[in-house]
């Protein structure tokens, strides 16, 4: 990857960054008295373009998904190497694969569950898959599909569809990141894997499942070894906290798990994870030659959409501004 290919793209990204919602705008939305007021504020921002045609506030989800779609299309256009954007789009591919497979098994139409963002022509992929024409599929996706199909025919366990696709997703993601050879991307993926694994550990522990199941759902390629995590299953939370204190993600893990101990809720852990991953991306603001700013801009945008969704859901369900604030994520700008 030639860093000099990104001069133009970084310049454009810098302009786009100025249009990200500021803390002040978010605060105004949080304090808004109802959803209509949030909409009014949103109409003064970059979102005004995708708000046309949406009349009911309950349809905010349409606005958010059109905006994401717009951003991804723009980023594909701007990025010299497709893979920079692929890294973040891949999750939608695997989501769509899950939907596609379940659609086939159930024989029902789940077309409104598909995300209209994909690294390839998903419609084509679907046709190829349904007609048994696997030779044009991306090899890793093909392998995932074949394995899921084989496993489902053998076990008939729908949960395993998700488990297997998720594992293939993270493997695929890790390989993509490694191919780019950009330290930020690799670190982002590895740290995400660690966070996911620790969260999985806590969940499996809470559900009182056995080690074998845990081993099945943990993801490889993280900084923390799977063996170590499996052995933690029967240890109390305090031991887990002190056991994983020498990793980059440790401060967040410690804080998140301490809150989990008191509330038995993992939502705070997830918030800390998002904030950590955002923090990781902040140095991209000072990168002038390279793909990092594009990657980080997309993450900033995804976080923004997540924040807006939290605000809208909270407003529709009449939560107080304090409750909303507690759930918000850190911003890029």
């Amino acid at each position: 990857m030639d860093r000099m290919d990104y001069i133009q793209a970084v310049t454009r990204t810098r302009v786009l960054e100025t249009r990200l919602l500021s803390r002040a705008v978010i605060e105004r939305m949080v304090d808004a008295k109802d959803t209509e007021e949030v909409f009014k504020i949103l109409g003064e921002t970059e979102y005004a373009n995708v708000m046309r045609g949406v009349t009911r506030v309950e349809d905010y989800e349409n606005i958010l998904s059109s905006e994401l779609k717009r951003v991804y299309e723009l980023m594909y256009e701007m990025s010299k190497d497709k893979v920079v954007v692929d890294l973040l789009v891949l999750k939608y591919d695997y989501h769509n694969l899950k939907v596609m497979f379940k659609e086939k098994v159930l024989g029902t139409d789940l077309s409104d569950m598909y995300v209209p963002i994909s690294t390839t022509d998903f419609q084509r992929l679907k046709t190829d898959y349904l007609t048994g024409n696997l030779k044009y599929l991306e090899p890793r996706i093909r392998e995932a599909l074949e394995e899921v199909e084989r496993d489902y025919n053998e076990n008939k366990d729908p949960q395993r569809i998700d488990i297997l696709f998720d594992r293939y997703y993270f493997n695929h993601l890790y390989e993509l990141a490694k191919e780019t050879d950009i330290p930020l991307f690799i670190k982002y993926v590895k740290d995400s894997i660690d966070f996911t694994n620790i969260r999985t550990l806590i969940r499996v522990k809470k559900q009182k499942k056995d080690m074998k199941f845990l081993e099945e759902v943990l993801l490889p390629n993280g900084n923390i070894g799977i063996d170590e995590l499996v052995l933690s299953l029967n240890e109390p939370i305090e031991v887990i906290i002190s056991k994983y204190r020498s990793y980059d993600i440790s401060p967040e893990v410690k804080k998140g798990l301490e809150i989990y101990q008191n509330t038995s809720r993992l939502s705070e852990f997830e918030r800390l994870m998002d904030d950590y991953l955002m923090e990781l991306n902040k140095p991209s603001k000072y990168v002038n030659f390279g793909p990092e700013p594009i990657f980080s801009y997309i993450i900033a945008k995804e976080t923004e959409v997540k924040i807006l969704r939290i605000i809208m859901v909270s407003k529709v369900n009449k939560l107080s501004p304090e409750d909303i604030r507690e759930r918000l994520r850190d911003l890029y700008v």
Partner: protein
Amino acid sequence: MYKVAVVGDKDSILGFKALGIDVYPVIEKDEARRVVDTLARNKYGIIFITEQTASLIPDTIERYNNQMIPAVILIPSNQGTLNIGMDMINKNVEKAVGTNIL
């Protein structure tokens, strides 16, 4: 076999999907009425509806209360209860027993 449905605002009812109950999110009055009427015609034996939504369409609810099938049952939404559902149960108990024993 009769089916079970739940009608109301999306955030309150989506969880029912995990139980295998068909979920029908509605927002407006007309939408709610149309959905309930369609469900009643399509072999739904039990229709759970949130009190908030039911309060928008009292006539429709009343109409189905006078029929055997479907049973329209009011449940509280995530905004808490309006006590309409409990009042209805009390009324039915009174009708059946002659006095309110709850």
